[in-house]
């Protein structure tokens, strides 16, 4: 391997790492606030890419149907809950959140799809569309089990992953899709070629991370989520609704995943079942961060990206194995440094 190949691999690694970092952040966020291990993150990524790919072809994406279906289900659940608990006064607002907003987005995407708008607008539509699935999924699958153990929530996550995987095949078919690059520009620095696409991905990821930083540090909702992550009961006592916190978290996480999907689309061909491996790489990053530290998780994700890129050069058949084996030394280190009396819930 000479220097220019090393730099090329590093560039690939950092680009992929930036995308994994978004996922790792989403996974840590969801786990901190809701204790859900967000296995279906990968499906949100593929839905993001494939929805954009559908819009590119001027087709209304199949996920519109899922959005409408989930919105209907969530709306029905809200009506049922309002009838049972006699909280009719809350219903209009909840129906607006769980029914009206998603249905408007679905309608918008469906109507605008045939126009083949400019790429940035299509990206916006895809991200909005997939983001809208997040809170609905939380409402339908997770909220009824909010008090269950981490283990039960994990099994639910795996079930959601399977269902979304099968639906992905149904909506998008077995063929892979690749979305066009945002830019074809490329820059020369000395001997090294740097693609504009990579720079954009990196810039974009950093922007999103900065936005998250501001959200959690400066806004009331961000602080409410932090409070919930720190102490669920305490947050509830000061008036933060756990349902709202969960929905908000899933909105954020879904949008992070959808962004990742949009960013990964031009780099690699995405199939309906590509998401699981991608999300697992995000998990490796999150585990490096102990499922709790955001900066460590992001750093871990970059490490995963680099490791993957270099191992694909040396032992491409085993690159997945090498990436996943990375968690063994990490877990070993965590296991030896943490006191083993951590109480299960």
């Amino acid at each position, binding site marked *: 391997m000479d220097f220019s190949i090393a730099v090329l691999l590093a560039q690939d690694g950092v680009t992929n790492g930036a995308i994994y970092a978004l996922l790792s952040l989403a996974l840590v966020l969801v786990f901190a606030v809701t204790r859900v*291990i967000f296995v279906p993150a990968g499906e949100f990524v593929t839905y993001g890419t494939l929805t954009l790919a559908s819009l590119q072809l001027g087709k209304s994406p199949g996920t519109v149907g899922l959005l409408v279906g989930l919105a209907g289900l969530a709306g029905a659940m809200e009506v049922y809950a309002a009838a049972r608990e006699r909280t009719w006064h809350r219903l209009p607002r909840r129906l607006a959140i769980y029914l009206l907003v998603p249905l408007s987005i679905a309608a918008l995407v469906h109507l605008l799809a045939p126009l083949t708008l400019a790429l940035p607008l299509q990206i916006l539509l895809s991200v909005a569309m997939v983001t809208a699935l997040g809170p609905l999924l939380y409402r339908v*699958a997770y909220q*009824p*089990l909010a008090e*269950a*153990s*981490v*283990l*039960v929530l*994990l*099994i*639910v996550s*795996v*079930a*959601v*992953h*399977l*269902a*979304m*995987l*099968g*639906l992905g*095949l*149904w909506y998008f078919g*077995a063929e892979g899709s690749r979305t066009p690059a945002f830019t074809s520009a490329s820059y020369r620095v000395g001997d090294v070629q740097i693609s504009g696409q990579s720079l954009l991905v990196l810039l974009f990821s950093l922007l999103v991370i900065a936005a998250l930083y501001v959200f959690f540090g400066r806004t009331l909702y961000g602080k409410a989520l932090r409070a919930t992550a720190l102490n669920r009961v305490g947050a509830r006592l000061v008036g933060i609704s756990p349902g709202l916190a969960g929905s908000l978290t899933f909105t954020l996480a879904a949008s992070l995943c959808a962004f990742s999907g949009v960013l990964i689309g031009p780099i690699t061909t995405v199939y309906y079942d590509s998401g*699981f*491996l991608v999300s*697992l790489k995000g*998990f*490796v990053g999150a*585990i490096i961060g102990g*499922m709790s530290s955001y900066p460590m998780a992001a750093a871990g994700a970059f490490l995963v990206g680099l490791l993957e890129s270099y191992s694909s050069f040396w032992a491409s*058949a*085993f690159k*997945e*194995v090498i990436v*996943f*084996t990375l*968690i*063994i030394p990490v*877990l*070993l280190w*965590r*296991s030896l440094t*943490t006191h*083993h*009396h*951590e*109480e*299960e819930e």
Partner: protein
Amino acid sequence: MRRAVLLVFIAALLAAPAAAPAFWITLLNYVGLYSIVALGLVLLTGVAGQTSFGQAAFVGLGAYTTAYLSLNYPAVSPWLNLVVGMAITGFVALAIGFITLRMKGHYLPLATIAWGISIFYVFGNLDFLGGHTGMSGIASLSVFGWELRSERHIYYLIWLIVMASLWTTNNLLDSRPGRAVRALKGGLEMAEAFGVDAGRLKIVVFIYAALLACISGWLYAHLQRFVNPTPFGINQGIEYLFMAVVGGAGSVWGAVVGATLITLLKQLLQSWLPHLLGREGNFEVVVFGILMILLLQRTRDGVWPWLSRLLPGAAPRAVSAAAALPGRARPHGMAPLLVVERARKEFGGLVAVDELSFEIRGGEILGLIGPNGAGKTTMFNLISGALPLSGGSITLSGRQIGGREPFQIAELGIGRTFQHVKLVAGMSVLDNVALGAYLRGHAGVTRAALRLDRREEARVRAEAAAQIARVGLADSLHATARSLPLGRQRIVEIARALAADPLLLLLDEPAAGLRFLEKEQLAALLRSLREKGMTILLVEHDMDFVMGLTDRLVVMDFGQKLAEGRPADIQRNPVVLEAYLGAV
């Protein structure tokens, strides 16, 4: 009656190959193979509260080991291959378990996902294992020279192994290690307080589950006589877990029910969905996923409890007379039993226990009291080992306690109860109390699984029953412990602590939440224990209760000792009065 149902089930199994068409035999073979794997998950997930998505990878280890060995060393018996496969599987499970099981519950499932995916790629990319095309031409099995060539023949071996694994697993659950495993799910603190090395036990359970999976894989390879990586991937690993959860992970029969239901449902969906949807594809996962979510939202116990209600209930096994368990040598007289010297505990900047010294003499009841936040519970946890000391020393009959794990402290002779009652759900009073005698037995997993522990088990049960009678609960011997009223549950906790034959009994607010009459009964019980020479340390809020019962009191405030003496003196002590009531 239950036995009759079991016999009918076995008779049906035996008759099936003669009557059923080949298609059903194939299906039943798979149900058997899956049941063995799901059974391991019942123990791991339903009973011990851990989980794994990587069982399919262990199945793969068993299958690939025997495939490789029987193709390359055809002279070697496949039965020997099984032993090799189990050794490899056991080693891998030990390594994974050692790394992940010392931490919170969610690291094991995450690590097993990564492990399950990795092994799939390893199988697929190693040329000597046949790569993605796999290996074919694996020899068939022979039993005593009788070759199991057809599916109808290996059927008997598969179901024999299913029944044997059901038997061993059921035995295991009803034994000394089994009680400890069942206690793990409710939190480690209680199990460790009775001498269970929880970290080690979790690893043992994980290995047990992995070995069952390995046996299933070995059978699979000799049934199919062909292996490739596909059936050992992560999706199959997820399916195994679904089988255990759908069937009901709380009972061994849940594994068989779950394996049957999922296998049949999958068969049905795979033949009907393409017609319904007009498209080919792996769409049954959607139905599985949604079904699973609904099931977990409605009931988390799966199908078996519901089926089980249709069967007649089993009568509880009677306790038979047995030789008494060996007891502990007890020091005589009023010599200091527990000595606390300048004990200190800091939480960051907060000093919860500050240079506290006191001692407990043999055969007395000492009360540790103080206003809210005085540090009583912290002091209690320092003695029981739930918290490590920051400084000073604590000794029991001259032996150091500080720096030891709770299960080691239990071994030294300290038995305790909990402020929030910690009895194992679903276990009878007898079994809960027998858990207290954990350290007085020795039967390990292997002996328990093979029912070689019955003599010792009879002695443990007799001891537990004797302690239950001693505290006056003989009439609730076989009741579910959690179904008793709170006052009686606290008494069960005391019986459990007594079953450990402790030198010192630690009681954490035993009167909290009790009604007047229950308190009277509790006080009478503690007095009678003292008369028999038991030493008791009591942390308590309730003044009336403490004043009438204890020999001496230690009063704490702000982590320090405020006063020490006889209850009557303490009641008149101005410093104590001020701490409790403010200036008078």
